[in-house]
């Protein structure tokens, strides 16, 4: 303390809490910067505590002890309250937590459902658009008032022609014919799918209109048949299960 002698006496007063005014403010400022004086302050407080042992007097009355016990009983501390808390006191909290978890679960489920609905609505809209386009294509192809013109070499007489469009994986077939000769009322043309192996398969009966045009759209066909070619014969009006010779038109796939 030799370097802090100017604070030494005031430090004792400060420890006793009786240093006042500017001396107190100066001491507090000094203590903030001086570990040695802070340590000495702790020792002086220790010395000061010994002063308490010099006090002579009667013991506290017995009622003081009971008063303390009663006060403690009225004021259980937090740690004690936690220790003696019964398990059922957590039930409301557990219930609240469970409800919160369920609410979050419902919210997430609801959000997923909304996303699924939006995704399905988008798909449905796209499919609707595709369907509309397909319908328009088919309507154009099959419209009775459609102008069908087969372009051939100049000065060549019009020839009967047919165009078969076949997708094996979907068993889907569209056939368009033009310049087809008129047939007797009891007769009709029949289209045949000639597979790479096996017997010819009926692919639709048709009669050309007044301008010689005709079409067969999506006739019933067995699944996955690979077509080698298509052929047309003249059959009874109701069609046949096997082609009647001769074959009047035939073409190769490509």
């Amino acid at each position: 303390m030799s370097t802090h002698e100017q604070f030494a006496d005031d430090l004792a007063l400060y420890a006793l809490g009786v240093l006042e005014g500017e001396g107190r403010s100066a001491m507090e400022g000094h203590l903030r910067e001086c570990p040695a004086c802070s340590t000495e302050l702790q020792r002086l407080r220790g010395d000061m505590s010994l002063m308490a042992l010099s006090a002579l007097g009667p013991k506290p009355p017995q009622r003081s002890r009971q008063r303390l016990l009663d006060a403690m009983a009225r004021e259980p501390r937090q740690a004690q309250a936690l220790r003696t808390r019964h398990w059922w006191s957590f039930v409301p909290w557990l219930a609240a937590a469970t409800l919160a978890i369920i609410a979050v679960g419902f919210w997430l489920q609801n959000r997923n459902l909304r996303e699924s609905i939006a995704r399905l609505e988008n798909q449905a809209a796209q499919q609707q658009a595709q369907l509309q386009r397909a319908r328009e294509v088919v309507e154009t192809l099959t419209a009775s008032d459609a102008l069908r013109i087969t372009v051939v070499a100049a000065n060549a007489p019009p020839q009967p022609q047919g165009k078969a469009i076949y997708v094996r994986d979907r068993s889907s077939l569209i056939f368009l014919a033009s310049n087809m000769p008129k047939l007797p009322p009891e007769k009709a043309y029949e289209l045949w799918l000639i597979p790479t192996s096996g017997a010819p398969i009926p692919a639709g009966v048709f009669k050309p209109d007044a301008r010689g045009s005709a079409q067969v759209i999506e006739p019933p066909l067995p699944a996955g048949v690979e077509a080698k070619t298509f052929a047309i014969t003249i059959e009874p009006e109701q069609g046949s299960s096997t082609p009647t010779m001769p074959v009047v038109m035939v073409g190769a796939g490509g």
Partner: protein
Amino acid sequence: MLSELPTGAVGDTALLSAVRSGDQGAMASLYDRYSGIIYAVALRVLRDTGAAEDILQEVFMQLWRNPALFDASRGNLAAWLAVIARNRSIDALRKRHPESDLEDCILSVEPDLAGDAERSRAMERVRGVMGEMPSPQRSALEMAYFEGMSHTEIAQKTGEPLGTVKTRIRAGLLALRKAFA
């Protein structure tokens, strides 16, 4: 429970640990151990049994409500309680708001006062040192400690110079320290 053991068989640290767990019996044991010192200090300062009982109650209830306020780094429990009791008593005497928070008080003191025998020996030694002090020095120290008088007030009352009063008070505290070195 710790409180079921004979008085003095359990250290302050163990009793405080039990108090932290809500053991009222351990708190009662600490009361039995230190209420005499605290009450004597409060009564000496306040000279009123009812007011001294209030201080006694307040100090122990503070410890009950928050035993974590005290830890070993703050010195020994008896000294800490004594300082708190004295400061609260002075605050009450001077009708001022408490100037010292319990948690602010850190002190360093040698004797362990947990045992009845150690406590009795320490009391005898302190009273011996105080008795051997020159009367003006003992008087200045007691006015500062038990009455909370500033050195200016003491100087006015005794007619001594301010510097002399300061030096006597400090020298008195150092004499107590020396007795336990």
